[in-house]
């Protein structure tokens, strides 16, 4: 086996096709998109070389800053929500429900398999005011309140989106973290209990440090997913009202495909990529320091 894989020609032959496909469908479009950042114009009007003007525009564009602000706020809140609720659910599965947890796990996981558009429609109906009040407004009416057009106001639309995305994905993170928790040897937990640890102190001193690697993976997974949020926003609010719930991804999509400005759209895409890289590196570095301390 070693002699086969030791041959450079064989290795190249095995890796070659996959590398070729990867280059064709991933690397070339990325480089192509990077090239676009130095141009303005679109498919119909043609392209003009503008140097770094698109980058200057990005830093002075209030809409881009709004979109960046929304993206960061959304990513931080949803990541905390997804991972925290997922972790609590995982603890519930392991320490309380134990072997009986499979039914609850299936039920909580169910929203993950639902299409985003279906979930968004469900939430639109749940929070609608007109033509008929949805359950949320019906509840407010039942308590004598006036009802709110949740998706028609910037603040409430943001929170409906947050609740929806946490609900939609908490089952996934619960299962991911559950897999990490069941890997903790029973003997360690048992001996900690004999030493007097229990409840919160058991979680803080034993469970949390031992599940740190899977927790870190979850956070990186979640932050990268939420920084690139697109489908749930489009389906629930389409970035509105106004541009109150427009993340960078949607702003990029609109700029390139609705306004026909491919160059500036590619610049926004590049900025988003840099943001994702920075956040991931930041989390990695932070976590490495923690692990060393532990």
């Amino acid at each position: 086996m070693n002699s086969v894989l030791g041959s450079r020609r064989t290795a190249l032959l095995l890796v070659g096709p996959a590398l070729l496909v990867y280059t064709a469908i991933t690397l070339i479009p990325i480089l192509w998109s990077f090239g676009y950042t130095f141009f303005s114009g679109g498919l119909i009007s043609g392209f003009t070389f503008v140097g770094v003007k698109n980058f200057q525009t990005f830093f002075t564009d209030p809409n881009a800053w709004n979109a960046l602000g929304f993206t960061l706020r959304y990513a931080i809140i949803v990541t905390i929500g997804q991972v925290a609720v997922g972790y609590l659910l995982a603890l519930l599965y392991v320490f309380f429900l134990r072997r009986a947890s499979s039914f609850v796990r299936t039920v909580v996981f169910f929203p993950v398999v639902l299409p985003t558009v279906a979930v968004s429609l469900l939430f639109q109906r749940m929070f609608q005011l007109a033509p008929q009040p949805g359950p949320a407004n019906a509840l407010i009416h039942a308590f004598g309140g006036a009802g709110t057009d949740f998706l028609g106001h910037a603040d409430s639309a943001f929170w409906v989106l947050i609740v929806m995305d946490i609900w939609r994905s908490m089952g996934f993170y619960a299962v991911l973290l559950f897999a990490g928790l069941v890997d903790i040897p029973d003997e360690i937990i048992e001996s900690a209990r004999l030493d007097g640890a229990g409840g919160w102190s058991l979680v803080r001193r034993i469970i949390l440090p031992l599940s740190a690697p899977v927790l870190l993976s979850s956070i990186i997974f979640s932050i990268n997913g939420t920084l690139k949020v697109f489908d749930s926003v489009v389906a629930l609010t389409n970035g509105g009202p106004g541009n109150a719930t427009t993340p960078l991804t949607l702003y990029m999509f609109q700029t390139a495909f609705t306004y026909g400005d491919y160059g500036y759209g590619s610049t926004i895409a590049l900025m988003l990529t840099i943001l994702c890289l920075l956040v991931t590196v930041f989390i990695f570095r932070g976590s490495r320091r923690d692990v060393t301390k532990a």
Partner: protein
Amino acid sequence: MGAVIAAGALALTGCSASGADGGGSSSGDFTTLGLTSNSTPNDTLKALSTAGCQAAQKSNAIKTDADEQTQHDQKLQLLAGQNALPSVFVSPNTPDLAKQFIKGDKLVDISAELKKDGLEDQILPVAKSTISKLYGQADAYALPNELNIEGIWYNKKIFSDNGIAVPGTWDELTAAAQKLQSKGIQAFAGDGKDGWPITRFVGAYIFRDLGPDALQDVADGKAKLTDAKYVKAAEEVSKLGKSGAFGQGVASTDYSGATNQFLSGQAGMFYMGSWILSNFNDASQNKIGADDIGFMPFPAVDGGKGSVDQTPANVGQPLMMSKAAYAKGGAAWLKCIAQGYGDQVLKKSGVISGFKLSATPSDLPALTKTVQDQITGSTSSVLWFEALFNSKATTASQSNGGSLGNGSLSGADFMQQVQSALGQ
């Protein structure tokens, strides 16, 4: 390294911009691209293929297709970039994109082609002038498959039950709205989800207050939407919205929801174009009865430079023809569309088009007749708020329409956002 990539991208983009001179259909089909939300153009063209366009159909058979309105502009841009626009298609949502098509020599000059066959008078003058104004061209680059006027439809019964006379001025309109509100009746049915039915109020107010050229001045850079006299229009609409005139849930009410509000008697008035007649004339949708619906032009603004005779008019989303695909039977199709579309669409769907009719049907519904009379009586027309804006400003305006309709956005902030998107 950067220079190499940039040079490479230039070569690649240059390549994609020119494209192959392929045309919309590789076969000899006469391809169409309509909208899923409005099947009338495709249905009418299909009907023409068996009545009036048989010869054209025989040599180049019609092949219809439709897409979602929200994806339409993107699809057209991509197709135009590849020189693969369909033979005939519903124009982009944003007139600015159509202007780019004209500039990029992607469209058939309809006026010039019809002139060759001596058919230029098949397009009504009012339709031609609206198309010319919309795309900034002397010639028509679009087929007026619709000719709409816009204004306020009102529920006659609600008006008479509450002792309201048809308002002639903006102040009378807001007073009528207030009166209805005080009786617990929603004054206007409003579609804030799409936004434009609300921003139409802003445009119409501007035309009445500042005159018919006010928005052309903005497009030409002679005025700004942030000027106090323009902001006043948006402030008036925002104030109306804050009072609840469009309903609490306006920002998330869509087109069919708003239509349903009006046709089920839940709202007293509805600003809409005459394309809504097909809904009004449909007894299964119209619960208040066509006889109980009246039409009033957008009211005058006291001391304003505009007049109520200047009717907001449009040609809907007119049909356009691809220059690249025109050689494949386009000429024969254009000739028979110009001669037969108007009669066919009025007979089949009750839609008034901008084509000359060979005969006016005697059994026209009363409301359709009212609209036709209004069109005949109009001395001049005006466009709508976003008609001369680029796509970015159109999106900024319409996506904020809901917030303006519930009063959560001030007129000044609204105008600031649209002006900033205009980039002037």
